[in-house]
């Protein structure tokens, strides 16, 4: 176990979160295919495609959708390298590990036998492939949506679909404060990391985490109280109001049609 390994790994998680957000802002500013469409169309369209992925029962269709997702990404200025590094490999590692035993465990027609009576069945291969393909494709669609759309627009799109106002506000506030808390937490951890000489005994590590969590909780609650006051100070009386600015242009209708057709086709062919 590395010296204070858990601090390092937690800090890595924090940095990943921040860099993901920053990248998203960069890409959302570019002029790509998705960026040209109304945010609502993007949200509906990409959600529809994720649903299509889940509904399709044929591997071929899921793979076709995957290719579609990759093309959409490239046309929207999301590089395949970025996707591979941030999404595809990660999913492969996680779901791959989960899917691997299925090749051996699923009953059916064996196509390869190993020592000790272990065999791989067609069904096993197919189920593992299907699972991995589905997860990869779905996550690609969601990631591309988020990389190309500012979070505020995603929320406003959801709000226009009748998501309760308070929920939209809470999603917005939470997102904003996640970064503040992540920064605070990572600063606390970094200062600990640099001050720790040699390995901390496990019990001491646990105490440290509990204390950091406690301090973070206190700060969070104070923040919550103060934000409420700040909202009141500017006239908030309990009813959330949101300013939204969407208008559909012809190309948005075209885009919507394209998405829905693609989704329907995929569902029909994959039934």
């Amino acid at each position, binding site marked *: 176990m590395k010296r204070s390994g858990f601090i390092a790994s937690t800090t890595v998680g924090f940095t990943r979160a921040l860099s993901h957000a920053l990248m998203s802002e960069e890409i959302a500013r570019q002029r790509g295919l998705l960026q040209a469409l109304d945010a609502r169309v993007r949200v509906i369209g990409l959600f529809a495609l994720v649903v299509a992925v889940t509904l399709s029962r044929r591997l071929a269709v899921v793979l076709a959708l995957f290719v579609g997702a990759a093309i959409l990404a490239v046309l929207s200025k999301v590089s395949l390298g970025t996707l591979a590094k941030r999404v595809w490999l990660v999913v492969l590692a996680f779901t791959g590990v989960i899917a691997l035993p299925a090749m051996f465990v699923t009953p059916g027609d064996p196509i390869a036998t190993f020592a000790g009576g272990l065999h791989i069945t067609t069904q096993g291969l197919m189920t593992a492939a299907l699972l991995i393909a589905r997860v990869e494709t*779905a*996550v690609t669609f969601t990631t591309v949506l988020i990389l190309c759309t500012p979070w505020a627009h995603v929320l406003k799109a959801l709000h226009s679909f009748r998501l309760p106002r308070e929920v939209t506000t809470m999603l917005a506030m939470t997102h904003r404060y996640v970064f503040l808390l992540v920064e605070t937490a990572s600063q606390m951890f970094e200062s600990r990391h640099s001050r720790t000489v040699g390995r901390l005994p496990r019990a001491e590590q646990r105490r440290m985490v509990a204390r950091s969590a406690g301090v973070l909780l206190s700060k969070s609650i104070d923040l919550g109280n103060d934000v409420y006051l700040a909202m009141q100070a500017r006239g908030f009386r309990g009813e959330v109001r949101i300013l939204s600015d969407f208008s559909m242009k012809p190309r948005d209708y075209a885009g919507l049609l394209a998405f829905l057709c693609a989704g329907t086709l995929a569902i029909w062919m994959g039934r």
Partner: protein
Amino acid sequence: MHIPDGYLSPSTCATLYAGAIAGWYAALKQVRQVLLSRVVPMISVFAAFAFVVMMFNLPLPGGTTGHAIGVTISAIVLGPSGAILAISIALAIQALFFGDGGITTLGANCFNMAIVGSLVAYGSYRLISAGAGISSKRRIVAAAIAGYLAANASAFVAAIEFGVQPLWFHDAAGTPLYAPYPFHVALPAMMIGHLTFAGLAEALISAGLVAYLQVADPRLLQSTSGMAMSTEERAGAYLAASSPRRLWLGVALLMLLTPLGVLAIGKAWSEWSPAEFAAAGSRAQVAAAATMPTATSPAGMQRLTTLWTAPFPAYAPTFVRSATFGYLLSAMFGVGFLLALSLLAQRYLERRRTTRYFP
């Protein structure tokens, strides 16, 4: 565990979304009764806090690490409704913004962690800490146990969701279309990880935070302490100290009805037809993989199990009518029944005490 897209069939996702929406609706309604505007920033902040907690890699006894959820401390400070909303929001942001968990499975994740988690955490915390002073050690223990139970309850429900997949959602050749592991693999796989790592992590964080709050800001532990609060304390609390019994009853009902719901869905959505199982060979193999046949079982249990499995059409494959499956559903029914009993008992006991709440 955050379930990604593709692990659960569309019908499973839809059912769990329905369950989640019911939970969200009930939680929102209860929170609106208090001062929603005031609670909006607080829930947001707790959601952000839970989000960060889920990223903490906690060092556990034995040299391992685990991740907590933060649902227990949220339930202890905000009450079950606030916790349901806070954790759901954290999960939504993780799924939407960071790709951690799927969007078709967001309903399932929220149901497992936010709803079942909050209710189990809150209920067990209240039960175990009943009557203890705000600074009592018993509250810390209660938080630890509540955290452990909540994490494992979430995992258990998820395991059931996984286990059901290969049972019903496969193609003609017997290929599972979604999560590929039957009950006897999925259950231990999920539960072992949570009974050890994740459960302990959640227990540790919850206990640690309650101990911290007892010193730093005991007022935050007031609204869920079950103690009388003065009018000004109640005005300052984040959630009215009203009984969450209705929500609990809802859960008990849900668990009681789940076996029936599962059956109904199975009948309505089942993708199989008699022709697909004409190949006796593959049918037997699938059956063998999914069952752990037991030689004998108590007569009463037998009757109960056949109660669930009988409604299936005669041509349904044998494994659906297996004893294991029946046991599982009976277990769910049993837990739901016990829950309902304990709620009624609580209500009876509370009625006997003098009124504790100021109007």
